[in-house]
C-alpha cells in the first residue's frame, strides 16, 4: 500500500513537473511582450506594495481604475508577493498566474480522485490537463480568468463536499466562490447562476440540512457584498454595459439592422443569444481553430486537441449513460458556465470559458478511459497494435503542431496585439533620456493601418520603475478636449505626432509607429533606432529632429 501510494505521488509529481515546464519555460519571451493589462496590473501591484495605494492614490482599492476599464483586484494583489520577491519585471508579473496553472494540475487530480474514487481517471485527467494547449496558453501570461478557474474548481469541489460532509465545506466553498468574483469578470454572472442552479438540483439532499445552506449563503453574501456594490454602482458597471450582447456588431448590422435600443428587439435578441449559446458546441471551436494563438486560419488549435474528438464523444455518451456522482451539478456547471460568454458582444472566446476546464477535461477523461477499456477488449493482436500505432502517431503529430503554433507562430502572429515593441522602445529611452528635454510617445500603431491605440504611459511607468508616490502626487497634464489624446507627466508626453510641425522640436525624442513617422520625411541621422516585431515588421521608429 505504501509503495503504491509512493508510486502514485511520484507520477503526480512528474505530471506536475511536465505541466510546470510547459508553463514556465521562456515565460518572459513567449508571449513576446507584456500586454497593456499585464503592465497595468503589474504597476498597480507595485504601487500598492510601495505606498498602499494604487497609481490614482486610492487606498487598497476594491477595483483598479487602470485605463478606465476598472480591473479586478485579486490579480494585482496576487502579484505583490511576486514583485517583492523578484522585482518589478515580466517574470514577477506572469509567475503568479503560471503558478495557479501548475497548482490546478494537482487540485484537478485530487478532485477527480475524490469524485470518482479512481486513480486511473485522476491520473489521466491531470496528465491531459498538464499538456492541454488551452490551459498552457492562458497560464503563460497574466490572464485573470485562469486564476479564477482554479477558484471555481475549489468552490465547486467544496460545494459537492458540503452536500455530503460537514459545515466547514460550506465556508470553504463560499470563500472560493466569492474569491472568484474578485478575480475575473465572467464568474460574476456564472457564480450566482451556478449557485442557484446547483441548490435547485440538490434540494432533495439539502432540505434536511438547511443550516449548512444558510451558512453557505450568508458567507457568500457577506464576502461578496463589496464586489456586488462596485459591480452595480461603481465603475465596474461601465464594463458590463460595454460588453453586453445587445451591442454586438453582427446583431446590429445583420439582425435588427439598427442599434439595439427598443424592447421590441428583445425577441430577436433572445434568439440571437440562443444561437450564440449553442455555438459553443461547434467543432471548430472545440477542436480546430478557436484558440486565439494565431491569425484567423482554417487550421489552428481548439480547446481540445483533435485526437481528443473520440474521447469527447465517448465521454459525452459515458456521461449520459453511466451513473456519474453529482451528475446534475456538472450539468448545471456546463449550462451556467457558457452563460457569461454567451451574453457578451464578441465571438466565442476560449479565455472566458476557462472556468469550464475541469468539466470539459473530465468528460474527455471519461471518454479516454472508456475507449481504453474497449481497446483492452480487442482480441486480435495485430488490430490492437495497429490501433495503438495509428493513434500514437496521430497524438505525436498533433502535439508537434501545437508546439509549433505556440512557440513559432503565436509570437509572429500575435506580437502586435501583445503590444510588442514598447518594452524595447522604453528601454532605449531609459538609457538615453538624459540627452533630451522631452520624450514624446505616439500611442497609435498597427501593421495594416494606424488602427490600434495602446497605452505607452503604462510601459514607461513599469520599465522605468517610476516612483509610485511621485506619480500619485505630481501634476499631470491632460488634453483640453476629450477627443484629443494628450497626457503628460514628468519628462514624458503621450500624444499624436504630427511630423511637419514636430520636426522643428530639437532636443526632443519621438517614439512612434511608421504611420506617424514616415521614413521618407526624415532627414539623414534623424532615425536613431528601428524597433521590429518578431515577424519582421517595424513596430516603432525612435527619432529626433536634426
Amino acid at each position: 500500500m505504501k509503495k503504491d501510494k509512493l508510486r502514485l505521488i511520484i507520477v503526480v509529481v512528474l505530471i506536475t513537473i511536465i505541466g510546470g515546464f510547459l508553463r514556465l519555460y521562456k515565460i518572459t519571451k513567449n508571449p513576446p511582450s507584456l500586454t497593456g493589462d499585464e503592465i497595468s496590473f503589474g504597476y498597480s501591484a507595485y504601487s500598492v506594495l510601495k505606498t498602499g495605494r494604487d497609481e490614482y492614490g486610492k487606498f487598497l482599492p476594491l477595483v483598479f481604475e487602470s485605463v478606465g476599464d476598472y480591473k479586478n483586484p485579486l490579480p494585482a494583489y496576487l502579484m505583490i508577493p511576486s514583485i517583492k520577491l523578484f522585482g518589478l519585471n515580466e517574470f514577477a508579473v506572469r509567475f503568479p498566474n503560471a503558478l495557479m496553472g501548475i497548482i490546478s494540475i494537482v487540485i484537478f487530480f485530487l478532485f477527480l480522485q475524490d469524485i470518482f474514487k479512481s486513480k486511473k481517471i485522476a491520473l489521466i485527467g491531470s496528465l491531459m490537463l498538464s499538456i492541454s494547449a488551452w490551459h498552457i496558453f492562458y497560464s503563460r501570461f497574466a490572464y485573470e480568468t485562469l486564476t479564477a478557474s482554479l477558484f471555481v474548481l475549489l468552490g465547486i469541489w467544496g460545494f459537492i463536499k458540503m452536500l455530503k460532509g460537514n459545515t466547514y465545506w460550506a465556508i470553504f466553498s463560499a470563500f472560493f466562490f466569492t474569491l472568484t468574483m474578485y478575480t475575473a469578470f465572467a464568474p460574476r454572472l456564472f457564480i450566482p447562476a451556478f449557485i442557484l442552479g446547483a441548490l435547485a438540483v440538490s434540494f432533495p439532499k439539502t432540505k434536511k440540512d438547511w443550516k449548512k445552506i444558510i451558512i453557505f449563503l450568508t458567507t457568500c453574501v457577506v464576502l461578496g457584498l463589496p464586489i456586488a456594490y462596485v459591480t452595480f454602482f461603481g465603475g465596474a458597471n461601465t464594463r458590463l454595459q460595454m460588453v453586453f450582447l445587445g451591442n454586438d456588431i453582427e446583431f446590429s448590422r445583420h439582425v435588427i439592422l439598427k442599434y439595439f435600443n427598443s424592447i421590441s428587439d428583445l425577441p430577436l435578441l433572445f434568439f440571437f443569444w440562443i444561437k450564440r449559446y449553442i455555438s459553443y458546441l461547434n467543432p471548430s471551436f472545440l477542436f480546430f481553430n478557436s484558440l486565439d494563438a494565431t491569425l484567423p486560419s482554417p487550421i489552428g488549435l481548439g480547446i481540445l486537441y483533435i485526437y481528443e474528438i473520440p474521447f469527447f464523444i465517448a465521454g459525452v455518451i459515458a456521461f449520459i449513460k453511466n451513473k456519474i456522482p453529482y451528475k446534475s451539478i456538472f450539468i448545471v456547471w456546463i449550462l451556467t458556465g457558457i452563460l457569461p460568454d454567451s451574453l457578451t458582444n464578441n465571438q466565442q472566446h476560449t479565455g472566458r470559458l476557462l472556468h469550464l476546464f475541469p468539466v470539459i477535461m473530465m468528460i474527455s477523461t471519461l471518454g479516454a478511459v472508456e475507449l481504453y477499456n474497449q481497446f483492452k477488449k480487442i482480441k486480435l493482436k495485430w488490430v490492437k497494435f495497429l490501433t495503438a500505432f495509428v493513434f500514437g502517431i496521430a497524438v505525436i503529430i498533433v502535439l508537434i503542431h501545437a508546439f509549433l503554433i505556440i512557440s513559432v507562430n503565436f509570437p509572429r502572429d500575435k506580437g502586435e496585439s501583445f503590444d510588442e515593441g514598447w518594452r524595447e522602445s522604453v528601454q532605449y529611452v531609459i538609457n538615453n533620456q538624459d540627452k533630451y528635454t522631452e520624450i514624446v510617445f505616439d500611442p497609435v500603431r498597427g501593421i495594416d493601418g494606424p488602427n490600434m491605440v495602446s497605452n505607452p504611459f503604462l510601459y514607461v511607468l513599469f520599465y522605468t520603475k517610476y516612483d509610485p508616490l511621485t506619480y500619485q502626487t505630481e501634476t499631470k497634464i491632460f488634453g483640453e478636449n476629450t477627443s484629443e489624446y494628450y497626457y503628460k507627466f514628468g519628462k514624458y508626453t503621450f500624444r499624436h505626432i504630427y511630423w511637419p510641425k514636430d520636426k522643428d522640436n530639437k532636443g526632443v525624442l519621438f517614439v512612434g509607429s511608421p504611420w506617424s513617422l514616415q521614413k521618407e520625411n526624415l532627414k539623414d541621422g534623424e532615425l536613431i533606432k528601428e524597433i521590429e516585431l518578431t515577424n519582421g515588421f517595424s513596430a516603432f521608429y525612435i527619432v529626433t529632429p536634426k
Partner: protein
Amino acid sequence: MFPYYTLKNLFFVEIIGRHFYLPNSFYIPLALINAILIYNLAKKILDRKLANITLLIIVISPWFYYLSVAHSFYLFLLFPVLLITLGLVNIIKKEGNFGNLFIILGSLIAIYSSVLFLPLLTLIFMAIIFLKIVSFSNLKKPIIIILLFCLPLLFFANKNKVGFINSFKQESKIFLDPGLINSVNKYQGAAEANGLKIFSRISENKYLFYTEEILNKYLSQLVPETYFTPKYKLLNFSFSPPIFIGFLIPFFYGLYLSLKKPIIAKVLLVSTILTIPSVLAKDMVSLNRLVLFSPVLFLIISYGLIEIYKNRKKIVFRNLLILTSILVIFQLLVTISDIKLRENSRFESYFGINYEIAEP
C-alpha cells in the same frame, strides 16, 4: 393543407415578391411532394396515427420554403433520395410490392441528375449491406437493374469527359479554398525561419490540413447549431433558422431513444453519408445541399415529439411538451414578423439593391 399554403405565401411573397411563373409551379409542388413522402416514411417507421406531427414540423419549418423559392436543385434531388428510402423501408418491413421499383427509380433519377450520386449511392448501398441493415440478397435485383441502366451513362461520360469532369468540379468545391494552402505555406515558412522545418513538414503539410478540414466540415454538419439556429444563413442572408429551436428538445429525446436501438443507430450512421454533398461544398456548411439530410432530422424530431406526447401524463414530459410548444409558437410569430419587417432589407444588403431576378 390550408396552413401550408397560408404559411407558404407569407414566406414566399415577403421574401422575393416575384410573380408566379413556371419554375415555381414545379418547385413548390416538389417541396409538397417531398413533405408527403417524409410523412409516409413517418407513418411506416413511427406511428401511423401521430405521423401528422411530422407533416406539421415540416410545414412550419422555414427550410423547404426558402429553398423552393430559390429553386434549389438539391430540393429536387431530395425526391429520389426519399423514393430510395421508401423503397428500402418497404423491403425491410416486407410491405407493399413497390420496394424495388422505388429503389430503382429513385437511384436512376438521382444518378442521371447528379454526377456525385453515383459514388454516393454506391457508398450508401455498401454501408447498408455491410452493416446488415438490408441483406445483399434483397438488394441484388435492384442493384443489377440500376447497373444495367447506368451503362448509357458510361457511354455519355466517355464521349463528354470534359463535361463530366466540370460537372463533378461544380459539385465538389472543397479543394478550391486557397486559405488552406496559404496556411500551409505560412506555417511551414515560419517553422523554417526558426530551424524547425522538418517538424513542420511532418505536422503541417497540405494532406494533413485537408484531412483536418474534411473532418471539421463533416462534424459541422452534425451539430445542432447548423439546423436549429441561423448560424449558416439560409440563402446567405436570412435570419430564419432551418428548423425552429423549440424542436431541439424533442430532437435530443428522439436521438437518445434512437441510439438505444442498435438498428436505428446503424441507420443514422449510414444517413450521415447524405451530408457529403455539403462537406464537398466550398462553405463550411451548405444548407442548400444539407436538405438531403433534412428527412433524418424531421423523423428524429417527430419520434421524440411523439414519445413525449404519448407520455404527456407524466409531469416531466408534460412540461417538455409545453416548453416545446411555447418556444415553437413564439419563434414562429417572431420569424413571421421579422420576415415582414426586415428580410427584404437583408436580401438587398446581401445581393445588392439593384439585384433583379430574370423573368422568362
